[in-house]
């Protein structure tokens, strides 16, 4: 009976059977814990012995390396061109103003140099003129420009004109300011209180006078013809 017990399914008394099996399981667990053998450990082979970190100091093989070929820097242009920007300016000024008349006109030491507050007349290559009160003169070599302000058809117009521009045919002084301006830049003339308004009347007078001078009726020497002495003409200094 006892021998057949495990192979047969009991029809009853499940409780006792389950208890028995539980006890067996516990027994197995205990046993397995007690008798578990440790897996055979295969230790890694000992690392090869490192070479001494000080061997580089003692090593003399690197002294026999080939030397890297070096080349001398290209010759410096600094001594050849000590002032490249000035050279560049002079080159362009010579090209744009071959006779130097614009340079002389806007030279600070020229007694007839236009000041801010003067009325200037610029004639362009296309033929159309623009006249206005000079508010500002920017002297930057070949980048020299003048800011003219005028009033055309009741609208204020301002124009920066580059003096050396090839589009500019002539710059003429129409009328000097009565008093020297006490500012370098006359931006306050944009305000209605100080606005000079239209310069049409002054330009008309100037052009009339210029026509008379050129035709020789006034008996005054043409300042443009007497180019030898440009400072002789007090008003109407032109640069062409």
């Amino acid at each position: 009976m006892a021998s057949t017990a495990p192979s047969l399914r009991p029809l009853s008394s499940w409780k006792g059977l389950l208890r028995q099996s539980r006890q067996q399981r516990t027994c197995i667990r205990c046993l397995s814990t007690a008798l578990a053998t440790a897996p055979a450990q295969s230790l890694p082979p000992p690392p090869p012995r490192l070479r001494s970190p000080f061997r580089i100091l003692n090593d003399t093989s690197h002294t026999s390396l080939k030397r890297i070929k070096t080349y001398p820097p290209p010759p410096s242009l600094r001594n050849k061109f000590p002032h490249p920007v000035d050279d560049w300016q002079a080159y362009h000024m010579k090209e744009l103003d071959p006779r130097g008349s614009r340079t002389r006109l806007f030279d600070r030491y020229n007694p007839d140099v236009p000041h801010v507050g003067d009325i200037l007349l610029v004639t362009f290559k296309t033929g159309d003129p623009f006249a206005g009160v000079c508010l500002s003169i920017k002297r930057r070599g070949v980048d020299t420009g003048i800011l003219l302000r005028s009033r055309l058809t009741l609208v204020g117009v301002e124009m920066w004109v580059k003096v050396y521009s090839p589009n500019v045919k002539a710059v003429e002084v129409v009328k000097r300011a009565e008093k020297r301006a006490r500012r370098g830049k006359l931006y306050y003339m944009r305000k209605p209180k100080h606005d000079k308004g239209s310069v049409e009347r002054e330009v008309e007078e100037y052009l009339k006078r210029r026509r008379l001078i050129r035709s020789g009726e006034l008996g005054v020497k043409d300042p443009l013809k007497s180019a030898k002495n440009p400072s002789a003409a007090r008003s109407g200094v032109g640069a062409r």
Partner: protein
Amino acid sequence: MLNCIDNSGATIVECVANLRMKRHGRIGDRIIVVVQKSRSIGDSGPGNASAAAGNKVRRGDIRHAIIVRTAKKVQRKDGMVVRFDDNACALIGKNGEPLGTRINGVVGAELRSKQQSKILSLASMHV
């Protein structure tokens, strides 16, 4: 707000969109404007046909326009810089033809490069 300098009847218009890009307008740009002030129709009497013909737009109209003057400086290729004291425009129709028959006042010469020669020729002066 811009001045309108043609004889379409509008005097002051407000810019509501720039058709070039979502950016500030420059001379020659096409913009959409709303007429804010126009010359009154009743001034010379309802029977006056010329006054009615002169007023092609009335207040509240939405129109296209071309900018002809800007207070912002405009630099040209040759280094010249031009600025005007006000912003102004001229109204145009849908086909691009100016609404007015005359433009009173100076306009910028940039209109030529922007293919607006018709406005340039109508203008009394260009700079």
